[in-house]
């Protein structure tokens, strides 16, 4: 992929490169292939969402990007260096998925300690200000609320002034307000020309905050592009109907239907071909009432692309 002519910000593609990443783990029933050939390139200054359901391989991919996990095959290049060299140079900041703070320190002491480990950190007070942690900077870390903890974790990730910021499901513990506040901080950070990769399973979050979405399912990249492009890949629409007493499997077997979601008597069929599906539905299920055909939103794209029923060669 190359920057289109006439685009103002010339972003260099491939500054961060994940090439053919493969990783499996030993499981109780044989090896679990967590990541099966992931290829992603990220340009400097891009904000990219790694979107996928639990078990899609997002965290494993991130661990390999960060050099915390050695890939079975494939390679990682971060600004032309190996992952561990980039980390050693202090170029990478991260908020990992599992992470609480260490106890018995104040917020300011903790952030200062982390700042001391980097060659060119931001000023601690500036980071506390940016992340909205100033007002409780003198509190001990074990006394913070979940939302406050998450903000401190953001401060820890940002204090090194990293070129690449990696966020693994950063807003899971936050309410809507906290989520918005979090992304305000990250947007400001991105505006300094920083590269951000974040994993999420919130579709709205990916849609709203990322320049680009990399959709993962079952250890593979199933789509990569702007939100609109992902919708185009699916071309999907969904059919809603009220239909009691019919097995989901019967509906899933209709031509053009890709996934079935049921809430009581209300059914939603995610379709690869809604026209065929609609004809088949009405012919086979004369009891179907309140039929509506809707355009695809990201939610539909998500269901269609990551459904195990679909071929993942998007």
């Amino acid at each position, binding site marked *: 992929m190359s920057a289109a002519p006439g685009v103002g910000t010339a972003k260099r593609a491939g500054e961060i490169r994940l090439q053919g990443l493969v990783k499996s783990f030993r499981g109780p029933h044989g090896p679990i292939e967590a990541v099966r050939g992931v290829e992603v390139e990220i340009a400097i200054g891009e904000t990219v969402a790694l979107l996928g359901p639990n078990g899609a391989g997002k*965290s494993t991919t991130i*661990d390999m990007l*960060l050099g*915390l*996990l050695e890939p079975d095959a494939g390679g990682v290049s971060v600004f032309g260096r190996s992952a561990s060299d980039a*980390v*050693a*140079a*202090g170029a*990478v*900041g*991260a908020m*990992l*998925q*599992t*992470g*609480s*703070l*260490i*106890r*018995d*320190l104040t917020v300011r*002491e*903790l952030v*200062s*300690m*982390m700042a*001391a*480990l*980097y*060659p060119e950190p931001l000023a601690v007070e500036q980071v506390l200000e940016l992340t909205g942690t100033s007002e409780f900077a003198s509190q001990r870390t074990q006394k913070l609320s979940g939302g406050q903890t998450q903000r401190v974790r953001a401060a*820890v990730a940002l204090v*090194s002034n990293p070129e690449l910021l990696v966020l693994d499901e950063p807003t899971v513990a936050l309410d809507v307000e906290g989520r918005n506040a979090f992304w305000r901080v990250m947007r400001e950070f991105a505006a300094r020309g920083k590269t951000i990769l974040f994993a999420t399973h919130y579709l709205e979050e990916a849609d709203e905050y990322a320049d680009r979405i990399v959709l993962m399912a079952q250890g593979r990249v199933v789509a990569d592009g702007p939100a609109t492009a992902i919708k185009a890949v699916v071309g999907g629409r969904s059919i809603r109907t009220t239909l009691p007493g019919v097995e989901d499997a019967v509906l899933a077997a209709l031509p053009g239907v890709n996934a079935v979601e049921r809430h009581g008597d209300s059914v939603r069929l995610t379709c690869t071909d809604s026209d065929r599906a609609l004809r088949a539905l009405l012919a086979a299920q004369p009891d179907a009432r309140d039929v509506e055909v809707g355009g695809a939103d990201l939610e539909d794209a998500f269901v269609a692309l990551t459904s195990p029923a679909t071929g993942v060669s998007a």
Partner: protein
Amino acid sequence: MNATYLRTEVRRTLRAPRYFIFVIGMPVGLFLLFSSLYGSGTQDGVGAKAWLMVSMSVFGAMGAAVSIGGRIAGERQAGWTRQLRLTPMPGRMYVASKAVTALAVAVPALVLVYAVGAVVEGVRLPAARWAEAAGWSLLALAPFVAMGIWLGHRLTVDVLGPLSGALFTALGILGGVWFPISQLPSAMQELAKSLPSYWLAQAGREPLAGSWIGWHGVAVLAVWTAVFAILGARAYQRDTARA
């Protein structure tokens, strides 16, 4: 080693409530108790109070050193170790900082028990002997620091808590930290002399009479340190996965 990081680590450890209970409170309390029970007369050619004082001080210092394992396990479980791996600080610096922290927080345990000995129990020694007892005690903590680091990278907090308590008590009893091994059957005495806890206790006691543990003792401590350090290094390297 990063000074700010190290200073913060030490400060953090000293603030933990468990530290005061187990590393400071217990040795001081036990010293006062034992001293009132067995404090008269002499042991191994030195005053019994001085002997008990040094024994309880190394007991506390041993607690401080081994407790580093629980802290490491806790940090792993919290995902903090992985966070630190994303800093430019090399892994060996992380481990070295933990070791230095363990020794640094062992110092107050020694000093406080000595102070209680001098002030409350009236133990009198030449200044050089106090310093030698403390210095040798710290050196002889090396195997326990390495053991703490190893176990901390191998086990979870839930397992490590009771296990290190049991291990610590067993090493204390079998190694004659609590009472002289001359009270034990001879086979047990031989066993004691192969344990690091025996040589730790002796490292503190010998200077009281102006002596030292000798090369044999140093060798036993060095072997234990090397074994735990190798196990610890391997555990650390394997320990990158998400907890």
